[in-house]
């Protein structure tokens, strides 16, 4: 069985909340593990905030379509926007070893996405940025819980 949703949002207040609510509903209806729901929610928050907010990563705000598919094995999220070409995974990784005083505020979001998801990909296709995120439901935890 496949479940999911598809929705388009613009740069209006509450856009990210609408997507969050849809994701929470899907998670609840399918008894999704809380850790998976949380990781995907954080990843989506990063990508949407980046695409929808003024000046984030030097981009203009644009409209975004979010498509979420859930099957027995994985959750797949496709985020498509019509903004200027931007590869969220082609950025330099932030230095996460700096102290409180040295740390710049910001620059962490896209790094989080790459680390929280099991697979990420970016494509520029027909004038759109297409980002695909995959979170495995069964083995997805193995690579992120090693520091516990």
């Amino acid at each position, binding site marked *: 069985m496949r479940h999911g949703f598809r929705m388009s949002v613009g740069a209006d207040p*509450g856009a*990210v*909340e609408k997507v*969050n609510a849809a994701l929470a509903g899907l998670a609840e209806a399918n008894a999704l593990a*809380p*850790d998976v729901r*949380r*990781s995907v*929610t*954080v990843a989506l*928050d*990063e990508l*949407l*905030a980046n695409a929808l*907010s003024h000046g984030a990563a030097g981009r203009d705000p644009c409209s975004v379509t979010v498509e979420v598919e859930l099957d027995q094995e994985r959750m797949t999220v496709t985020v498509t926007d019509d903004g200027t070409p931007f590869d969220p995974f082609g950025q330099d990784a932030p230095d*996460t*070893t*700096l*102290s*409180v*005083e040295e*740390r710049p*505020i*910001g620059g*962490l*979001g896209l*790094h*989080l996405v790459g*680390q*929280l998801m099991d697979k990420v990909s970016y494509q520029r296709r027909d004038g759109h940025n297409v980002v695909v995120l995959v979170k495995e439901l069964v083995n997805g935890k193995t690579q*992120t*819980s090693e*520091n*516990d």
Partner: protein
Amino acid sequence: MQINTRTSNDIHIVAIAGSLDSTTSPEAQKSLDAVVAGAKKVVLDFSQLDYISSAGLRVLLGAAKQLRASGGKLGMFGLNQSVKEVFEISGFATILSVYQSEADALAAM
């Protein structure tokens, strides 16, 4: 998101429930700024925090910088697995003071 603040002796305990993300962070920032402006010892109670994204991390880093600059202290406890994971990926687990329990956090202030 809900924010409740209480004090124990001279320690301000700020409980943040729900999510700290791009939607809720502006409000969290206001609340936390107000607390940090008048306090030297601040403990964040994350026991009802569902998840945190980089927008929330920014708010925490801002509070940590302010308190560090004014000679104050910031601690936190009650992180769930998801929040811990974000802290570890971002390096916040090593630069911020994270405690196992409220008692540990209060004792360290």
